[in-house]
């Protein structure tokens, strides 16, 4: 499986990185985190306007026509930056419409999404039911019920809603009968909530793309978590060089130094792992369910653990609201729980492997 990034891809990622560095310094992140929606929107909108809105949309619909490998590589950088906004939800919505939508549906939505004028979101989980096999909502003839833990509630104009049998429907946020209930979210840079449907008119897309969409969601969650954990390690490494106790930087204590080496060792292979998983999705989709389940199980669990250990390693300052550690710790905690916990996906991966 070839998952090496080309020079062009790396240059592109570099541009995104530069944008993120400029727009996501800790003080702004904290404001977004504390509920400043204007800052969060500005950062997110700026990302879409870099051309990322249509990253995975076909070129004939104004997109860049790229695959999950590129989307995941960008997601890693977004996780690394701790950037606010429903990026993952938007990419998944574009991917779903591009692959499951009719020509008319693609023409209706994708150009605007690619141009950054329309934000999309996916509404998949029903309670804790993340698997398409457990989705119960039905759209015949109209949609009633609710979807939970939806990211992008506030921003999205169009929702891709998971239905029984892995079908997907398109619902406009302004459609009569749609209601939104924001929740108090663990990861405040990416708040979630419930979207309710009361006899809502919707359009079902022709392809049942739920199972593939799940794989993509798991892969992006892995990439985001990897970015978050890599950032945590980078930051705590820098801090340990400057924080002096007993007349030396704490990094000079082997108990600290070795812990950091262990964290770095745990992070190191996760980048190649999620990229390989994304490349499998793009190139050999038959193996995708198992690979995505395994990556989600491993990376979101390891990353969450790394962020926890790194936070503790700061001492008291890491335990404060003002400190940035919890931005990434909460991000990793969210990814851990979103769309099925690691243990559940590990069990699934074992089944899929025929063990």
């Amino acid at each position, binding site marked *: *499986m*070839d*998952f*090496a990034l*080309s020079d062009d891809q790396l240059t592109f990622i570099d541009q995104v990185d530069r944008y993120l560095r400029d727009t996501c310094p800790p003080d702004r992140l904290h404001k977004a985190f504390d509920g400043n929606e204007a800052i969060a929107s500005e950062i997110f909108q700026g990302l879409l306007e870099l051309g990322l809105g249509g990253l995975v949309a076909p070129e004939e619909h104004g997109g860049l*026509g*790229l*695959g999950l*490998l590129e989307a995941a590589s960008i997601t890693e950088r977004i996780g690394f930056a701790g950037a606010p906004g429903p990026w993952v939800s938007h990419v998944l919505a574009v991917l779903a419409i591009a692959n499951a939508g009719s020509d008319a549906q693609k023409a209706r939505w994708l150009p605007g999404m690619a141009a950054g004028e329309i934000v999309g979101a996916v509404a998949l989980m029903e309670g804790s039911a993340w698997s398409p096999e457990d989705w119960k909502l039905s759209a015949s003839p109209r949609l009633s019920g609710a979807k939970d833990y939806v990211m992008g509630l506030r921003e999205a104009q169009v929702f891709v809603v998971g239905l029984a049998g892995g079908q997907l429907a398109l619902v406009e946020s302004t459609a009569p009968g749609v209601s939104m209930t924001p929740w108090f979210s663990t990861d405040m840079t990416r708040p979630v909530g419930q979207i309710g449907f009361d006899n809502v008119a919707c359009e079902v897309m022709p392809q049942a793309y739920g199972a593939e969409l799940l794989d993509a969601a798991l892969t992006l969650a892995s990439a985001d978590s990897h970015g978050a954990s890599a950032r945590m390690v980078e930051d705590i*490494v820098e801090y*340990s*060089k400057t924080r002096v106790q007993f007349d*030396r*930087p704490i*990094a*000079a204590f*082997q108990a600290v*130094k*070795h812990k*950091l*080496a*262990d964290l*770095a*060792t745990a992070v*190191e*292979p*996760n*980048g*190649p*792992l999620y*990229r*390989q998983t994304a*490349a499998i999705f*793009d*190139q050999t989709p038959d193996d995708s369910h198992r690979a995505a389940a*395994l*990556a989600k*199980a*491993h990376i979101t669990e390891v990353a969450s653990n790394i962020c926890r250990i790194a936070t503790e390693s700061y001492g008291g300052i890491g335990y404060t609201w003002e400190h940035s550690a919890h931005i990434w710790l909460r991000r990793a905690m969210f990814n851990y729980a979103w769309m099925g916990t690691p*243990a559940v996906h*590990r*069990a699934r*991966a*074992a089944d899929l*492997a025929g*063990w």
Partner: protein
Amino acid sequence: MLAPVASEQETFRKEVKAFLKENWLGAADRDASAFRKKAVAAGYVYRSIPKIYGGSEQAADPVKAHIIREEFDKVRAPREVGGNGPGLLAPTLLACGEDWQKEMFIPKTLTGEYRWAQGYSEPGAGSDLANIRTSAVLEGDEWVINGQKVWTSDAHNSIFMFILVRTEPDAPKHQGISYLLLDMRQPGVTVRPLKQITGEAHFNEIFLDNARTPKNWIVGERGKGWIVSRTTLVHERNTVGASMGSDHLFNQVLKLARTTELNGRPAIEDPLIRDELGRIYARVSAHRAAGQHAQNLAGAGREGSPAAGGFTKLYGSAISESIGLLAQRIMADHAMAQPVENHAGPGRWVRQYLNSIAAQLGGGTSNMQRNQIAERALGLPRD
């Protein structure tokens, strides 16, 4: 989507397969050396070694190298000869040796005729390797060597040793060391096997009592042996931590889980065992992906992490330990005693678990890898 680069690779893979089909007669083929000669001629083994020294001198191509490894392993065809010689000494000679040394030693090392022991560690110099005391003094045209080496793997099967000795007793620790080659078939060299934790004796104590070696059997300059030895260590770490080992071991433990009964059903049906299998398999996959990533970087001429060897050794040896632990959970009471000494049954797993300790010691302990990662990759203060 990625550019479709597969076709060239697939053509190459077909070539390798065709070669194997024609030339490898399977495990029944006792004469690995004849096969290996053909594999060298075809450019499949010893790719980084010049033809004049018995290699196949191919342009560095990690993707091709990977394909060769995969295809050879699939049919269990022999690749490079194992041991310290081809893996450690040959690359060191190529990097630091004189031409006549390369001519004299490399070809026969590649065929397995010359086996080599690595004489680094001493009773007082393990992690702190530069603390070695074994001395070499020039007398006429010969070095006269006195001292003791320990934990020397495979010395009982080897006829030569590459050895670190102190030649400049007054120089600072790292600058007083030289790298010598030594013929072990002489009265001044005594090899005493050491029984290992597994019950086998793969390593030894070496006593050097006026052992002699020619003046020009020195690799690199006098007093520069420390730097020469680093070349070898880099190769060693990369070998010890390679992910192929993890893959193979995982398949074995998977088989164990399928064929062993635990609480009245196949162990593989136990949710806790499945969870741990999944946990380990994810790490094996990550390890493999990281290996491929490193190859991709090398192939594209990009720099990898300065501590890549440390990462992969630490990661790989931890996987090996987890697999050993899981095997014990699966075997349950069979891990306590076996009716007969059986290297194919439970006894094999007891040995594997104990063996995983060696992986965390040899070639630099896990703590030394942590130091290396912390200092080289993360830029933390030196110990």
